[in-house]
């Protein structure tokens, strides 16, 4: 199945109560497939075909506030339309699961894959996990419910998959049995809160235990609630690793430590840091380089929020030159989002490596293995000379 179908199948197995969504390429297959499950009575899910992504995420948030397990999917302009509600959902501490089939943002309008859409939501307070392939997309959705709904996390989460490269490409996907998934994910649990009636009750809208959600908190309290969200992210940091291990026991599959996934990095002198499907292509290149005794490696960031700064620092301890590949841009900035994050994390390293940025793949621009090979060639030269040549390279652009 393709990545979108794998996601829909995982959602089906997770016994989701409410799915509210609005179609957008390249996510559409997810909601189409899920609609089929609903139409054929294969799921016990209320499917709400909203009139916009804004209402889709709102309906998920509100359903989640009542206590339901909820899912939605989006991409590009749709995710941008959700922008306001992404912040509201994380602030409201409702564990919605969202699949993002990453796609370029307008203008010019473009339906193909890059990560401009989700990188623009960097500070939305969501947990950001990116899959490398359809198998990981399937596995990550199952994990996502368990991470988000953990009572000490209680945060929304998105699973990003590269538009078309993962969403539309057929791959072999091994699935778990429905029973195994049900048991692994379990029922939704709720954190407890103290209400205005002086009762400590589950955090959900229940006429038996009235509580107020979404009030106004002014200068005297707003900041404290934001600090609570940071703590939830710290809890998520541990939880993602625990669940990665737990899932490995069930499925035999794990993705690094859940936060980062490395390839031949232990003795690497040059390395590429990347998010998503490109890591797969790079593995072949690294294998070729290794036959020539070039110590190349890969660090794939699986979890972008909470950002695995310590893991990254330790994993890149002995690397001399690093290329960070960003499938998004920050016009006018010094490099793009992932580069900023990685170079920032390495600032405290004892031996600070040279870190350069490659912007690539915008609007679905293809990068062939032979082209990608050139990045390692650049890194090799930089490592030898000890001098960075260019901080930001627009890779694959006609100059």
């Amino acid at each position, binding site marked *: 199945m393709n990545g979108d179908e794998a996601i829909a199948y995982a959602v089906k197995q997770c016994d989701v109560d409410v799915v509210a969504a609005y179609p957008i390429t390249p996510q559409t297959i997810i909601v189409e497939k899920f609609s089929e499950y609903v139409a054929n009575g294969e799921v016990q899910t209320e499917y709400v075909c909203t009139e916009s992504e804004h209402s889709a995420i709102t309906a998920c948030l509100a359903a989640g506030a009542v206590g339901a397990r909820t899912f939605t999917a989006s991409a590009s302009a749709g995710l941008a339309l959700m922008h306001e509600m992404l912040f509201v959902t994380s602030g409201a501490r409702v564990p919605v699961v969202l699949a993002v089939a990453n796609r370029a943002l307008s203008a010019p309008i473009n339906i193909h894959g890059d990560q401009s859409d989700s990188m623009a939501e960097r500070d939305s307070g969501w947990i950001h996990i990116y899959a490398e392939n359809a198998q990981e997309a399937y596995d990550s959705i199952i994990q996502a419910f368990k991470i988000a709904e953990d009572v000490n996390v209680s945060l929304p989460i998105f699973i990003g998959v590269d538009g078309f490269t993962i969403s539309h490409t057929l791959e072999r996907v091994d699935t778990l049995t429905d029973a195994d998934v049900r048991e692994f994910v379990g029922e939704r649990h709720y954190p407890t809160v103290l209400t205005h009636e002086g009762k400590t009750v589950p955090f959900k809208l229940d006429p038996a235990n009235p509580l107020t959600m979404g009030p106004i908190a002014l200068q005297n309290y707003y900041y*404290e609630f934001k600090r609570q969200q940071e703590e939830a992210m710290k809890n998520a940091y541990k939880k993602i690793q625990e669940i990665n291990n737990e899932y490995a026991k069930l499925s035999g599959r794990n993705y690094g430590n859940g936060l980062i996934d490395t390839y031949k990095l232990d003795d690497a002198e040059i390395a590429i840091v990347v998010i998503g499907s490109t890591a797969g292509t790079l593995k072949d290149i690294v294998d070729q380089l290794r036959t020539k005794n070039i110590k190349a490696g890969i660090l794939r960031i699986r979890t972008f929020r909470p950002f695995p700064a310590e893991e990254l620092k330790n994993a890149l301890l002995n690397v001399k030159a690093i290329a960070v590949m960003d499938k998004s841009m920050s016009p006018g900035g010094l490099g793009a989002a992932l580069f900023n994050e990685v170079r920032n994390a390495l600032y405290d390293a004892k031996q600070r490596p040279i870190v350069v940025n490659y912007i690539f793949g915008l609007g679905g621009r293809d990068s062939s293995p032979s082209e990608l090979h050139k990045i390692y060639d650049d890194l090799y030269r930089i490592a030898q000379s000890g001098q960075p040549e260019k901080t930001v390279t627009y890779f694959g652009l006609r100059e």
Partner: protein
Amino acid sequence: MSKEKNWKEISLAAVPSKSSVSFLTGDWKTYMPNHALEKCVKCLTCAILCPEGAIRFNPEHGQVEFNFSFCKGCGICANECPAKAIAMKIPEEEE
């Protein structure tokens, strides 16, 4: 600021822990309703139309009662009273 709780002590997601009935708005008012019991026809129009819910009917005393802890002195009750039993007055200062 010192009385306010820190981030570890407050409930998740800003769920309020107090009912607004502990937030008194009675000191907002300039004018105070003066209720002439002998004129009152107990139609309850005042109690129904009050934006604050500050007027009640006490079945024990069989009378309409004002809760001045919440009354903001808007004067809707006086304006709407069909029996003209309510007059808005500036309260005399108590020394």
